[in-house]
């Protein structure tokens, strides 16, 4: 009894630590005050301000565009990488695909910056951000796809060949339909990662282009206004939707670390 009770207290404390800050951000986005200090009253005002903030809207547009482009391309390449990792079972391959996932973001950001400027001689902007986001998203998609392949009966692919399907037909009729939920889930993960990314974007954005996380950061440098709370709340909502979608489409994906 007693042990059960303290276990519950510990669990609740841990969850409070995780979710209370998020909850406060949400609550204060509805606060009818310029300051985040005390609760005055309920208002939609900050959402209205947000809607008329041209810079913020431009940043949000950029973020969505970058997330869409990078997640689509990362899904394509990541799926192929996942299949290759499953098929060829070479350690080197897995290592190469997974390294960007494990690499500290700051390192990846700096090295991409140097690579774009010094090697490719690229002007930093949308293209460089998209390329950077593709780089770190591929690994996530690849892992999700490989995990779902590893869960399939290997003889399914041989059975397809046995039934007269060429390697391409086997992929089209058997492999792809079976891994499709994981491909979509991987794509949604890549989309979310891109949308939320700050560090790597910060290094590869240059001066002209801003994304939502960059914009939020530049705003809180001056003062944390409830407008930041409002935009954070919306971002949170979008991310949450993505996570729910992923867990619905491919229930085993969120367990891939275990």
């Amino acid at each position: 009894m007693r042990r059960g009770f303290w276990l519950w207290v510990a669990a609740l404390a841990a969850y409070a630590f995780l979710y209370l800050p998020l909850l406060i951000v949400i609550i204060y986005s509805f606060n009818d005050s310029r300051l985040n200090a005390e609760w005055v009253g309920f208002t939609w005002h900050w959402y209205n301000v947000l809607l008329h903030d041209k810079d913020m809207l431009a940043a949000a547009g950029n973020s969505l565009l970058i997330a869409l482009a990078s997640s689509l391309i990362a899904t394509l390449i990541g799926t192929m990488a996942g299949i290759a990792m499953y098929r060829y079972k070479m350690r080197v391959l897995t290592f190469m695909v997974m390294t960007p996932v494990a690499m500290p973001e700051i390192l990846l950001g700096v090295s991409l910056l140097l690579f774009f400027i010094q090697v490719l001689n690229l002007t930093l902007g949308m293209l460089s951000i998209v390329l950077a986001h593709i780089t770190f998203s591929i690994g996530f998609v690849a892992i999700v796809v490989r995990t779902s392949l590893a869960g399939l009966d290997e003889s399914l692919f041989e059975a397809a060949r046995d039934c007269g399907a060429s390697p391409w037909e086997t992929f089209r009729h058997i492999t792809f339909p079976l891994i499709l939920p994981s491909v979509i889930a991987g794509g949604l993960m890549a989309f979310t990662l891109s949308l939320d990314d700050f560090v790597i974007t910060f290094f590869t954005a240059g001066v002209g282009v801003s994304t939502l996380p960059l914009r939020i950061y530049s705003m809180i440098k001056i003062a944390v206004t409830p407008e930041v709370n409002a935009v954070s709340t919306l971002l949170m909502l979008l991310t949450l939707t993505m996570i729910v979608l992923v867990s619905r489409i491919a229930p085993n994906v969120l367990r891939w670390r275990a």
Partner: protein
Amino acid sequence: MAQLEIRNVTRRFGDFVAVDNISLNIEAGEFFTLLGPSGCGKTTILRMIAGFDLPDAGQILLDGKDLADTPPEQRPVRTVFQSYALFPHMTVAQNIAFPLVMARLPQNEIRQRTQETLKHMRLADKADHYPRELSGGQQQRVALGRALISRPRLLLLDEPLAALDAKLREEMQIELINLQRDVGITFVFVTHAQDEALALSHHIAVMNRGRVEQVDEPSKLYGFPKSRFVADFIGHINMLDAQVLEAAHGHTRLNIHGLGEITAPPVAGVAVDGLTSGVGGVFAIRPEQVRIGIRGEVAELKNHFPGEVRNLLYCGDVTTYKVLLANGAMIEALLPNSAPGRAELFKVGDTVKVGWRHDAGVFLHE
């Protein structure tokens, strides 16, 4: 000419020789079984016939044509996998129709032949179900239907009964026999279960460590094993250390170590002249060929020795007696319990006579 000819095929995985210079001939329309313990190379042979694996040396010929350059999808060969490998995202009807769809047959022909196969496999009411909604036996019939619908020249079966429980397995054995007779297609069956092989096959190749020990009809394999491995692997058998005293045309005289002289049948498959006296080996005899008696009846047999009943296993239809012989060897005798009261004929500790006919058993030389 045999329909399927395996010529000096070898397959290595690193240092391990999975298939070691094997040659086999499989005739059209027969039920052929590759039997052996796990790791003996039987599945590797099956995979090479299907085209999932290629020999390092040797040839596989189907109807006289070398299959080496034919990918699996173009071989007129179908496989029933151990796991059945049914496509989980397709219904039963879609699974069965898949080979015809891949062959790009006209829609109406696909529909008609799928219906026929569903009916033949007694799956008509399951057409729109998914594989996970079926029982093991039904999944098995889907796998068989999918494999047979395109009328292959050869059907390969990789331990298809291993996942079923004992009762269902017996039903499926009878179904397989009937199916094979119905469709007249050559079946190549892989199993490690010797009783299954004996019950189903026209011919059995017993394999051990990548080699074929013996190819024969089931009754010949059981009655006249040519090696200790085959004798031991198929059914139960008693083995007594023995030495040849005289190998004549009509019979062989053996000395059983520590017991004495017996008369045994001539050694099958080995040139009698090659077996000179003094050759060592074992005398092998099936438990059901061994008789036990207390008084006269066994003493009339040419070969008989005294012994003591040490164990008995009552199995309902039969009782197995383990009898200790004078040389310290234990011999098993299997007696039917068809007459009432027979089960209690002998008790543990009884002194009995053990004997067998002069034409029973085989001598297997080293």
